[in-house]
């Protein structure tokens, strides 16, 4: 995809982010942050490509595997801890 379409997507996504996140109440700001960590683990799609190509040098193997491990840590850790926190928020009665 060419650069200009990517910049288009960037601009619109930033607006989308602002629109969505300003609606999150301060009550949920900590789970919001851990949720953001979890989705930031989307770097895993780049990591999979890095680790899954025909690995040739020890450096690329290390970087690829490391990237997959770190991104998975974010995804699993982020979603689970968000779930753990959200489960605690109860209404009265």
């Amino acid at each position, binding site marked *: 995809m060419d650069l200009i379409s990517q910049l288009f997507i960037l601009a619109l*996504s930033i607006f989308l982010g602002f629109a969505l996140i300003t609606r999150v109440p301060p009550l949920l700001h900590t789970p919001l*942050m851990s949720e953001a960590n979890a989705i930031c683990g989307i770097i895993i799609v780049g990591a999979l*490509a890095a680790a899954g190509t025909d690995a040739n040098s020890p450096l690329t193997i290390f970087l690829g595997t490391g990237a997959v491990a770190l991104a998975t840590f974010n995804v699993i850790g982020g979603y689970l801890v968000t779930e753990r926190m959200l489960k605690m928020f109860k209404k009265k009665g």
Partner: protein
Amino acid sequence: MNTAFATNFVYIISSVLFAFGLKFLGSPVTARRGNILSSIGMLLAVLATLFNGHIISFQWIAIGIIIGGSLGALVAFKAAMTQMPEMIALLHGCGAMASVFVDWTAYQVHGTTDLTNAITLYLSIVIGGLTVTGSGIAWGKLSENIPGKPIVFTGQKWLNTALIASIVILGVLFIMHPARYDLFLMILGLSLVFGVFIVIPIGGADMPVVISVLNSYSGIVACTTGFVIHNTLLIVVGSLVGANGMILSIIMCKAMNRSIGNVIFGAFGSVVKKAGGDEKKEAKAMSVEDAFLIIENAKSVVFIPGYGMAVAQAQHAVRELSEFLEKNGCDVKYAIHPVAGRMPGHMNVLLAEANIPYDQLLEMDAINPLMDTVDVAIIIGANDVVNPASRHDKSSPIYGMPIINADKAKTVFVLKRSMATGFAGIENELFYYENTRMIFGDAKQTIQALVAEFKSSQH
């Protein structure tokens, strides 16, 4: 239908699910559904990438997923709610490091393809590098493995200026000669060093801002990596996370009445403390027994918790006390200042953990208009966020900071160990007000003693 089209189509679905996930976080009722939708989006994106035909070897992927996944699950289940800020800092650092590794692999395997590629690669490793070590230091400070006090030394400004200048100059050289591997490594190395020096002068009280800023950076890095490896999904998600961190940083700064630049470049601890020797003011102490007589007759009580409450692990005792108060026909609420705790929203999580219903947790702006009607405000482990000096004392370093107007309540109880000052090192005039009573001692024990009074009065 070719596989590239199919993969991108799934990526679009994932982006939509992530957006819905964030939208559903708009209310505690739908939040869990949002988290599940978001995780489905993640799973779809991973599956689409695994089976798009470009991946030919799976053994290293399997090893990475097993290591990362098991550690992630372990940390997520073991972390106490008081440790949430350090957990989040750790996740920021890991996300940024994963991005840097992906950038590095792309550079190692393909080199740079054109000018834009070189520029985005440069930005990505600089922001990524400083986020990795910055988050590491933030994690160390929050977990108290490194002293939380600002670390300042002479020549710090010059050192930072030199670091920034070198990173910029090397960057220009690198963009002109993108094949120079040595420049790539030097830029990465200096960015890592710079991350350390950005965070060490920042004190514990400013951590909510630091965490939010790093959150924003971790999103920006995902975004720039998206440009490096031409992945639209990374650009979308990186922007969402970047916007998230930015908004939270602004909210935190407003709540502290400071600019982001002021937090990052001016160590709060360096505020000159007012010389002592003011006229001797007398704070009025009160015993637990007398305090009980007051809250027993109160029609409305507001608890104002600060991080000190979490340190004393008093939240469960507080919930017990509020249940007795409610049985007694009293209206109980909690007033939450935006910077109470060590990260945005931290206090709400700590109180929710103690089974306090979230409809009793009121934000500062919601509770302040009601403070006049409150019989008793009980301040537990909070200090600067209830200091009325911020409203009128122009010489005070916290002048202009929005506060919870605890002093407007008919009676104010301050639970405190001693007359020591808060994070900002400022004397709190509220302690000397006519309607304020100090209850000295460990906050948890004081609350438990009040609970015991309620229990014995019922027999």
